[in-house]
């Protein structure tokens, strides 16, 4: 039984992630939902554009966390939304360690092409997570 769950989301396949997380819950649980605003940009990206990107990502993150909160608005679940800036994999692992969570739930299932072109956060987390991980297969 898990008492403290860390849920990660980038706003995609939220219904599947919520469904699988609810299946894990058996009693009272503290649920931390993390959205990481990835702030890194290439060297020649204009500063104003970088600021605009961060603002848009924060607005998007706020919306996603609000939607997630609605999805977990159930008795026995204490929901906490968390928005942090940095490298997604590093921040997820850091939060899991600091919060001493029992399990990390995250979506996965990018195609091989996407994995090579975009990289895979879940693969990086798997290698350094301090706890159990539930990878929800989300790609169609």
């Amino acid at each position, binding site marked *: 039984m898990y008492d403290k769950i860390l849920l990660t989301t980038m706003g995609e396949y939220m219904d599947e992630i919520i469904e699988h997380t609810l299946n894990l819950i058996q009693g009272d649980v503290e649920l931390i939902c993390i959205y990481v605003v990835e702030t890194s940009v290439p060297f020649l990206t204009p500063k104003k554009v970088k600021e605009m990107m961060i603002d848009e990502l924060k607005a998007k993150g706020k919306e996603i966390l609000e939607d997630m909160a609605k999805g977990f608005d159930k008795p026995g679940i204490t929901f906490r939304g968390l928005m942090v800036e940095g490298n997604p994999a590093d921040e997820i692992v850091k939060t899991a360690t600091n919060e001493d969570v029992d399990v990390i739930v995250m979506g996965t299932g990018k195609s091989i092409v996407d994995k090579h072109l*975009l990289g895979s956060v879940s693969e990086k987390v798997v290698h350094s997570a301090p706890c159990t991980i539930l990878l929800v297969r989300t790609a169609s």
Partner: protein
Amino acid sequence: MFEVIILIIALIISLIIVIKAADVFVDSIVEIGLALGISEIILGVTAAAVGTSLPEFGSAMIAILTGSPDVGVGCAIGANIWNIAGILGISAIFAGLITTRRQEVRRDGLMAILTTLTITAALFFIGEISFVVGVVLIIMYALYLWVLIRAQKSSKESEMKYYEDEKKRNLGKKTILMAVMGLVGLAIGCRAIVYCTVELSIMASIPEVLAGILLAFGTTAPEFFTVLTSAKKGLNSLAIGTVFGSNIFNILIGLGIPSLFTVIPVEPITIYFDAPVMVFITLLLLFLIKRGMKLTRVEGVILVASYIVYIVTRLYFF
């Protein structure tokens, strides 16, 4: 050979200087604008539209005013073709999917095609970019900017209070100095870019227009990183908006402003091949986007393939 290597290194260094100087200049101008009490919405919209396009504008402006108009025209038109077919195509391939909103395509996409049609028609009928054409282009840009600011104001009504609070910052000497330094960096960098491009085109025995088209690979670096990063982060509106915004700016301001100072002669090859290709590529993008308001990986491949066909044709058949 040694001279070619030196010129290529100088070109790359100049491009980096120009891109960074443009960044410093735009930042400082926004600060100065805020201190003068100009709305942050107006400044934000203008900075976003101008920011990534300053290297093309500066290079085109300096090239045209220093007697190499073909480099300037080639750079502006070449940048527009590369922005859509190259940058957006590559970004769609990497991100897998770039979505957009109908109202943005209606506003920015329509303006982009209107811009390319206007300049192509002007070139067909007049054969050069005259003062009158320049005035028309600049008026079109002013109207577009007005529409953008109006749209931004209505969509960010709630944030207005925040902007109002932010108004009227103190204007420091450092900000003015940075603006001047940014402008000087831009001018010197652009002059060096044009010099290196012209010299390289002479050594490689290629026409100056083609050299300008190839130069666009470098001057569009800010667009490239902005669009690719936005697409990968899922900020789709920013990705497509940057391309449309840059293409509109490159023609309306990039060619409009220099034509106020001198008549810009244009090579027949540009009038009958490059400009129509620019119209075709813009229409192709709109056609691909219109089907579901998205750009898929396959459509990205179509765009990149179109660019390869264009540049190979340009290099080997003309």
